[in-house]
């Protein structure tokens, strides 16, 4: 009933409090290097030189030397800043930041980066040329209309099964 009076416990000494005005030591800044452009795909590194044909279906980074032909059906080919390529490249997207001589056939896009040097022809739907890029050759941009027949054909194939279903529904009603 009677609450026991609280005992006056001795206060334990507080640790020294650092005054707020003292600046905290600077935290180390962690600079995260950007991932290499085609890290998820294959890499032809600086020390590698290839003569012949390179084919594949995933992204490719070329930092070495390639003479011949590169065909990447669905991916991106990046010629890195130390890459030297004398070839024809065919890919969905092509980025050139190194030296390139030959023909670029980028189905969706071709990018000639600031450090890129291209001598040859470019055929693509979209081209991006960054300031400082060096280019000598022809740019041929294929118009969207030229690509349309292929796309409309794909759509009509997908719609075909709908026709018999509609016919059956009408039969059921009659």
């Amino acid at each position, binding site marked *: 009933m009677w609450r026991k009076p609280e005992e006056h416990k001795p206060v334990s000494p507080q640790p020294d409090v650092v005054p707020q005005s003292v600046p905290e030591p600077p935290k180390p800044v962690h600079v995260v290097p950007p991932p290499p452009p085609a890290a998820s795909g294959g890499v032809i590194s600086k020390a590698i030189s290839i003569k012949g044909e390179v084919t594949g279906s995933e992204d490719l980074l070329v930092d070495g030397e390639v003479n011949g032909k590169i065909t990447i059906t669905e991916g991106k080919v990046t010629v890195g800043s130390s890459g030297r390529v004398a070839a024809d490249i065919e890919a969905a997207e092509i980025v050139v930041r190194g030296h390139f001589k030959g023909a670029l056939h980028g189905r969706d896009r071709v990018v000639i980066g600031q450090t890129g040097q291209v001598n040859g022809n470019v055929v693509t*739907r979209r*081209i*991006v*040329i*960054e300031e400082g890029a*060096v280019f000598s*050759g022809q740019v041929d941009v294929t*118009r969207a209309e030229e690509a349309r027949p292929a796309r409309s054909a794909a759509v009509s194939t997908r719609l075909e099964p709908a026709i018999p279903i509609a016919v059956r529904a009408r039969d059921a009603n009659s």
Partner: protein
Amino acid sequence: MGLFQKLRGNPARSPALAGAAVPGMRASPLATPGPHLAARGGRPSNGLKDFILHLEDLNHGRLLDLGPVWQTTVSFFIERGFKVYTDDLLSSWKEFLRTDEERFRSLAVGDETFEFSPPARAERFLSTTFQYAEQSFDAVLAWDLLDYLDSAMVARITARLSDLMRPGGAILALFHSRPPDAFYRYRVLDHQNFEMLPAPALFKLDHVFQNREILNLFSRFHSTKSYVGRDQIREGLFLK
């Protein structure tokens, strides 16, 4: 319709050249005229305006830009159905002179097989570089390159350009009426403005052409029109 008839007549431009972009092509914001251009330092150009008016009739033609490559220039002409060729002639000439001189220095004393005169040098350059089939182009942007070439090169380049042009083709060239304050590179901003970008000089100005000299250089062209701006840049439009 001839160019000058067009200039006298209705200047309304066809939709093809009025900023209609090719679907799928990333439109350059600089390719359409707008008030932002003045802020970017665009230089109004009657020569460019008439050059583009002339190109209206040439759908899907081929254009050769003899300056460095720029996204704005490439986009501008591609959006108008042109195939664009870029050949930075002054850079190629500079590189050629460097290698040619190295070759000359490596020759044994008394070896006279290598002629180092300006005409011989120009012939060597044109036999290895600037190789296109005759009548390949409908339009050429020559900018001010002729001001920086020696007389042997100027004569040969203008003759070569004449060969490369298709009948009805047009060349736009610039000439400094007085020595410029800097070395410039040029890019098209829209149908009547180009941008002058100061750049590290590749060459010193070789010659200030008089009007008569310009007419003589392009004597194989049936029509010539020139415009002088306040900045003393003479723009020449030459029709083959």
